[in-house]
């Protein structure tokens, strides 16, 4: 499903002393199967923007097109459920949405609401618990006796069980320890690749955006500030600094290395081992000179 934002603005509590325009004049297009990272610091409008993609918010101005759905302010109340089935959102701290007695029931909740037949649901429950790398004996447990990291995986399984075509991840690693962060980001990347799922990652962790995204959209003060592939975006150090965003350390390191040692290393998503090899090769060649 392609996603398109045309001149979209959204104002919270319009016509009151508390009115606040969270995003303005957003134009965007996201094609099916892309991995997009939306970055920007807190208050830049990231959360508001993503809630437009499954109709949780309707634009105050402009329109959002998701596949065949068109959302705008003068929308008559249409059935948004079909849309929500196709666009799954993993909210920040998704473990807060768990409520059922067992993990199995909680994962079934979404598909059940969308009217999926029972035997299909049990298939999906199994496959999604597997996708989040938990053992099947968790299904019988109460979600509230699990650890924080496990609860988060259960909540994610609940979204995956809807088998969405678009997966929105709102700060999925918030509050996890470094190892938990790495594991969960890898898991999402595998899902993205194996299912050709459109993935929209909202994050303020620039290294995640660099590592996984095909394209980065930088939001600042409710507007699209920059847009492009990670290499392009992170080469504009000054512009990023202006909106308080960091450049991932690996890029700063390469840049500093090139300056210091007259190097020509380029970042192209190489692994750490590959980068080490390039560094070694650089020194070998320079010795020969």
């Amino acid at each position: 499903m392609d996603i398109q934002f045309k001149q979209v603005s959204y104002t919270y509590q319009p016509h009151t002393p508390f009115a606040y325009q969270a995003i303005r004049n957003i134009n965007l297009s996201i094609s099916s199967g892309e991995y997009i990272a939306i970055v920007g610091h807190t208050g830049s409008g990231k959360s508001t923007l993503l809630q437009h993609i499954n109709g949780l918010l309707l634009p105050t101005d402009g329109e959002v097109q998701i596949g065949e759905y068109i959302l705008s302010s003068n929308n008559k109340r249409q059935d948004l459920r079909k849309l929500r089935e196709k666009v799954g959102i993993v909210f920040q701290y998704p473990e807060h949405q768990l409520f059922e007695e067992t993990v199995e029931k909680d994962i079934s909740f979404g598909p059940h609401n969308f009217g999926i037949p029972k035997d299909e649901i049990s298939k999906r429950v199994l496959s999604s618990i597997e996708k989040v790398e938990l053992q099947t004996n968790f299904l019988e447990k109460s979600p509230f006796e699990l650890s924080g990291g496990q609860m988060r995986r259960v909540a994610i399984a609940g979204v995956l069980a809807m088998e969405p075509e678009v997966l929105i991840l709102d700060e999925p690693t918030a509050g996890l320890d470094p190892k938990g962060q790495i594991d969960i980001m890898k898991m999402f990347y595998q899902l993205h690749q194996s299912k050709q799922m459109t993935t929209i990652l909202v994050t303020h962790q620039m290294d995640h955006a660099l590592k996984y995204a095909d394209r980065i959209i930088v939001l600042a003060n409710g507007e699209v500030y920059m847009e492009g592939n990670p290499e392009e975006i992170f080469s504009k150090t000054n512009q990023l600094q202006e909106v308080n965003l960091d450049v991932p350390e690996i890029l700063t390191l390469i840049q500093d290395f090139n300056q210091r040692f007259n190097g020509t290393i380029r970042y192209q998503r190489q692994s750490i081992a590959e980068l080490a090899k390039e560094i070694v090769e650089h020194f070998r060649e320079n010795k020969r000179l």
Partner: protein
Amino acid sequence: MKSFMIIGQFVPGTSSLHKLDPRTKMVTIFSFVIIVFFANNVLSYGWLALFSLALILLSKIRIPYILKGITPVWFLIIFTFILHLFITREGPVLLEISTFKIYEGGVIRGLTISLRFLLLVLVTSLLTLTTSPMEITDAIEELFAPLKKIKVPVHELALMMSISLRFIPTLLEETEKISKAQASRGVDFRTGTLKDRMYAIVPLLVPLFISAFKRAEELAMAMEARGYNGSEGRTKLRELKLTNIDYIAILLYVIINIIFFTLRQ
């Protein structure tokens, strides 16, 4: 999702109404609530309406904002009016539509009661519009302080109130977040039969309760770590002090009441 309601919402400002001591405001407004029921003729009602209007002007809050803010109450006011129109049978008949008769007494009764209601809502909402919840809590603690003598835990109750007030925005935000999360998992909170909607609320309430308990637990621990050990030996940062503006306000209020009682029959 957010409905437009101003009752209970504080609008920060620097007007003379904002500057009054909350105790002054609470005592006068609660006495006003009683006084309203003593109005019994056009003049006395007019005088109270004038007084309310003056208060609104003094608060420097925009009138359309206030009027729109009490929209849900308008419905009640109109309903009260119509109700009295039909059930009161006094005085000459003004209008007759088949079996329904509208009496002059009904019109007058309807009008006065709706006006009373309107004045009450306007003036009490002015209290919350111009007084921060914290000030209200402080005023309650001060005004009810004598009850400590008969072992009413006034301090603890006031602290509980202020903590609840402090967590209202947090819990509202949380409610919104969870209801959005569940909506995107296919819950529909707005359509379906009453039974459906009751069920739809479970996935919202359970997480909310769990989170509220967790917050309460953590907060209790943080309070303990910061040395909270009941009211004994505690000092207070906030001090309520009556200033000149309060004395002037009280004096004016007394004069207004004297005039009111001479105007009524």
